[in-house]
């Protein structure tokens, strides 16, 4: 049906993302919002997934640090053309970057996983057990 059509799925995803363009979920807690790399934050069940587009990095040039609720992503992006080439068009940007964000939830620092594939960085942040919402039974 509709949901199995990948293009339809993408449109729904694009519309869902549009709705959160001005989300205040992180409040003012990202340092230098608008900094590189741009981030999208998702929830997956109780957990948080931070996704960033950062094509052309080397895994060992990426530095991800976590302290408490703060995550820092730092690195440098370089582009090499080789010697003796003539440049016709240059649109890719290069430089250093460093970004940190404060999550509004408690995370389990030992279970954080990061993955860099096809130029996309994904950081999986499991929510700490003690921070998960509990349903209260009415006695």
């Amino acid at each position, binding site marked *: 049906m509709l949901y199995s059509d*990948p*293009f*339809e*799925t*993408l*449109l729904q*995803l*694009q519309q*869902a*993302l*549009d*709705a*959160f363009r001005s*989300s205040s*979920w*992180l409040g003012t807690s990202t340092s230098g*919002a*608008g*900094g*590189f*790399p*741009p*981030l*999208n*934050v*998702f*929830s*997956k*069940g109780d957990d*948080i*997934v931070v996704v960033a*587009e*950062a*094509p*052309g990095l*080397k895994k060992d040039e990426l530095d991800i640090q976590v302290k408490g609720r703060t995550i820092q992503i730092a690195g*440098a*992006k*370089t*582009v090499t*053309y*080789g010697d*003796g*080439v*003539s*440049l*016709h*068009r*240059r*649109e*890719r*940007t*290069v*430089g*250093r*970057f460093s970004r940190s964000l404060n999550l509004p939830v408690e995370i389990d620092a030992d279970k954080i996983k990061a993955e*860099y594939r*096809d*130029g*996309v960085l994904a950081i999986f942040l499991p929510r700490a057990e003690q921070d998960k919402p509990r349903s209260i039974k009415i006695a």
Partner: protein
Amino acid sequence: MAGQELEVQQKKEVASQQEKTIPARFYVPPTDIFETADALKIVMEVPGVPKEAVDVKVENELLSIEGRIETTNYNGLEPLYTEYPIGHFARSFTLPWQVDQQNITAHLEDGVLTLTLNKRPESKPRRIAIQ
């Protein structure tokens, strides 16, 4: 070059030269084009596009590149906060006559697609021997 602070490039949506028949939005990948002695190189950033989802076509001097992102990675994810749009990538270029259209190679690594457009032998610089 590498010392400066890296700025975010806003993604540019593809303006419809040829319109797409599917409803989703496409974006223009930032591209570098440079020339070496033997080839013209086109390097474009297509984060999130796996190797199998890149289409490179040449038709009537027009080189069209399309890269589709893997949407299944987003299954089960609910957005909380977003800073950039996601979508497939598309861009096309008119090829100069110097390019050998039968001899184009493509390589994708870490979201960076490199196309090597080899030049025709007759367009390479030649040394003329004096008789």
